[in-house]
């Protein structure tokens, strides 16, 4: 019987010919990523809970400090120090302040066909390169670190057939929010979202990252694109080779199929406090904002900064708005610097921070206060996510966020 890309990756990692949805397999992990959100707990468990602490293969481990950078309190510093010391003692690849973990992983590690665990829910991003990345907790990560293996329940796959091309002024983020709005916050629970069709082919790897990254907001275990020439060229440019390049078989089994015509997508916004509460952006135009955020593993790449800068050029951020621009990595920052985008943001009055998770995770930077409103390109808009429990977060595209920052209220690019 035919298999999907995800099933083929699991089969390869499990060392078996065939897997089907619902099976539980023991797999050998190609790589594991852990960030400062939980690594201090993993390290504690490593030292206190194990009879025989050991690491199967330190070369498969990547530790990334990205959530609270620079550190905002002694307790944060203690947690990060624990992680840093552990990485140094065990010769684990260690990144600090260089960017959001998923962006670093994509820039430096992920290869098509790999099975990767990350102690962060947005690990599903790696599907943009045809890899199977999924988020796990720190106990899972510890188990994987010690044994090099883990167990996987083979997920069902949903096919998302993308047709056509996104219109001008509409972005992959609008597409993905539209999809989540349609299928709901648990619309792909435990399942794989496989993106295919001629529309998928029109998307760059960066665009694909936007889609895959948000898959967890529909409950998905992961999301995946076929590693086509676009992906392979991207990989080759970074001097990496695929582990395996898979296509889904003609007779592969899909639990469900959706078709989205990219040409019909419009700018949308997810309203507080749920990612699937998606409405056309024009319905919330005029909502006064206090802060705007352009960044995150979802929308902090060079394309997004270009869109933002094109809107900010020659304009000023509204007096009552704090506009945070946070590139997803130092590589992205340097590209933006080279293109003069940083200059545009600084001239406009934006706050340009070092690459990190920033207000997307709402713990230490750009934290918003009582009853404040944020429009964000981040991943989530849960109640209190960006600060005070009474505050509100709207999610929109880089264009909508930048236009709103200028206007001082929610505004789309065309209305500015």
């Amino acid at each position, binding site marked *: 019987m035919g298999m999907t890309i995800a099933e083929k990756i699991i089969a390869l990692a499990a060392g078996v010919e065939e897997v089907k949805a619902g099976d*539980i397999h023991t797999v050998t992990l190609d790589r594991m990523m852990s960030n*400062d*959100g*939980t690594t*201090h*707990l993993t390290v*504690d*468990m490593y030292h206190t*809970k*194990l*009879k*025989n602490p050991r690491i199967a293969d330190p070369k498969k481990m990547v530790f990334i400090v990205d*959530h*609270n950078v620079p550190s905002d*309190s002694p*307790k*944060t510093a*203690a*947690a*990060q120090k624990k992680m840093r010391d552990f990485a140094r003692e065990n010769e684990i690849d260690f990144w600090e302040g260089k960017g959001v973990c998923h962006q670093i992983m994509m820039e430096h590690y992920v290869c098509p066909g790999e099975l990767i665990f*990350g*102690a*962060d*829910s947005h*690990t599903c991003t790696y599907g943009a390169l045809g890899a199977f990345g999924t*988020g*796990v*907790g*720190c*106990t*899972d990560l*510890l*188990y994987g670190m*010690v*044994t090099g293996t883990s*167990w996987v*329940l083979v997920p069902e796959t949903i096919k998302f057939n993308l047709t056509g091309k996104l219109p001008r002024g509409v972005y992959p983020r609008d597409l993905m929010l539209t999809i989540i709005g349609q299928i709901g*916050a*648990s619309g792909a*629970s*435990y399942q794989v979202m496989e993106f295919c069709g001629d529309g998928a082919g029109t998307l760059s790897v960066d665009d694909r990252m936007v889609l895959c990254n948000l898959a*967890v*907001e529909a*409950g998905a*275990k992961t999301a995946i694109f076929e590693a086509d020439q676009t992906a392979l060229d991207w990989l080759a440019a970074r001097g990496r080779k695929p582990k395996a390049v898979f296509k889904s078989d003609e007779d592969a089994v899909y639990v469900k199929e959706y078709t989205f015509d990219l040409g019909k997508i419009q700018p949308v916004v997810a309203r507080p406090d*749920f990612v*699937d509460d998606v409405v056309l952006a024009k319905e919330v135009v005029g909502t006064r904002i206090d802060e705007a955020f352009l960044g995150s593993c979802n929308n902090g790449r060079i394309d997004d900064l270009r869109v933002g800068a094109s809107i900010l050029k020659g304009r000023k951020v509204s007096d009552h708005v704090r506009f945070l621009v946070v590139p997803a990595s130092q590589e992205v920052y340097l590209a933006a610097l080279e293109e003069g985008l940083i200059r545009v943001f600084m001239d406009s009055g934006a706050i340009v921070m070092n690459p990190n998770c920033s207000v997307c*995770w*709402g*713990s*230490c930077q750009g*934290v918003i206060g009582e009853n404040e409103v944020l429009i964000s390109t981040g991943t*989530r808009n*849960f*109640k*209190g*996510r960006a600060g005070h*429990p009474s505050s509100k977060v709207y999610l929109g595209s880089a264009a909508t966020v930048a236009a709103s920052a200028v206007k001082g209220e929610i505004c789309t690019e065309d209305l500015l």
Partner: protein
Amino acid sequence: MSVGKIFKFHNDLDTDQIIPSQYLLLPSIEEMKAHAFESLDPEFPQKVKPGDFVVGGENFGCGSSREQAPGVLKALGVQAVVAKSFARIFYRNAINIGLPVIVCKELPDQVETGDEMELSMADGTAKAKGNTYPCTKLPPYMQQILNQGGLIPSLNEEVI
């Protein structure tokens, strides 16, 4: 298993509500647990007693992979989380740390915070307000992890 009191929460209850981001880098779960459900019910950590239940709707525990979420519930003595459905990372994390997570389609709509319930994992049933509700049984692989008290004990039982 014994009888416990119910604390009921809404559909799509996300991990930021269970434990907000700003507490995740505290040194230990013990320090974090005082902030569980802070936005929704700041008194929860004081009110909940060992053996009580958290009941949710659909997609309980959606959002981040923070294992601190099931971690604080376990640390507060929650006997089990019962919901119509769970987000997968939360579900997996809960089992990995030995916190029972029970899928029960009917019960959540029939109970309120403060009601009492009784859970029988062996029978796969939950009892509340005089009714008995069927629960979905765990796949044997996961049941085995849970029976061992989570993933780490299994690691320590392995022959090296």
